């Protein structure tokens, strides 16, 4: 079960920061947890922001999916907690037509 202290948000709240790196929206992307195998949308991840960066955890097993830390002009991105992330590229096709 999820933690009892409701000190987390969810993947929706990370979307602004992630838009600095990804050209497509990540909240609607489906990913698989590398620890328990759960397949969820990134929006459903539990997000912890009381850290130097942001930490997204699997809503099922609570293991770390993603870490994102910005330091000056660099962004550190650690995604080893996800086996894959499936992104909807129709957004890219739309933008390339503009």
């Amino acid at each position, binding site marked *: 079960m*999820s933690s009892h202290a*409701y*000190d*987390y*948000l*969810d*993947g*929706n*709240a990370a*979307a*602004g920061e992630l*838009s600095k790196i990804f*050209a*497509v*929206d990540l*909240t*609607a*992307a*489906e990913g698989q947890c590398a620890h328990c195998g759960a397949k969820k*949308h*990134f*929006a*459903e991840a539990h997000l912890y*922001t009381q850290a130097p960066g942001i930490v997204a955890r699997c809503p099922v097993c609570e293991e770390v999916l993603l870490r994102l830390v910005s330091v000056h002009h660099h962004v550190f991105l650690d995604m080893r907690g996800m086996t894959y992330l499936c992104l*909807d590229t*129709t*957004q*890219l*096709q*739309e*933008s*390339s037509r*503009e």
Partner: protein
Amino acid sequence: MAGTAVSGRRVIWRVGTVVAFHDETATARTITLEIPDWPGHVSGQHVDVRLTAPDGYSAARSYSIASAPNSEGRVEITVERLLDGEVSPYLTQELAVTDRLELRGPIGGWFVWTPRQTEPVQLIAGGSGIVPLMSMIRSRAAVGSTAPFRLLYSVREPGAVFYRDELQLGADHSHCVGITYAYTRVAPKNWPRTPGRIDPALIASATWPSNLAPTCYVCGPTSFVETAAGLLAAAGHSPDKIKTERFGPTGDRK
């Protein structure tokens, strides 16, 4: 994730100009912004607002968009003032019409409703979690959608209800949104339900049954969202049909 309508344009910081205010409650204010190069939004999306002090210190917060999609580059956000907040006291007390604000958006492509959706929709709001759901209600009304909508709005007391008159007007129309208020602390006189948190009996009486397979949108503080999503799942709704968006324990999103 198929069917989400999201602009493919890159999310960048833009500058909006404050054109109007409206106080929703004693502590919450709606701010209307005009953003010249706004690419348009979908109901349910949010923006990040960034304030920068003269010494360069900056703080950003996320706020859901309350207004329906429009082509005029207008965006409304409703901000609840938090006593120990870093951003919300400024936005609700010091910001003036014609002031400019930095914002990034629109953000998010999962917690969204578009008029292409014709299935029943169950909205469940906890406190200021009503904001993105109000955008969905407004969008539905603006395009004349007849998608069956119900709203369960959990709120501390009658004085804390956002958009009260507009919700009441909408509830009187045909193809209306069925609205149930659930007061947690203080209810109006002769209110049928004792003030308290949402529970299985309320879910059973005030929300679409699971056999109609509604898409459910739940938004509010994290503890509220966990409770509401758990009650929906226990009532037989598929987890795939329950979309959630969590605010912080204080309603602040970061």
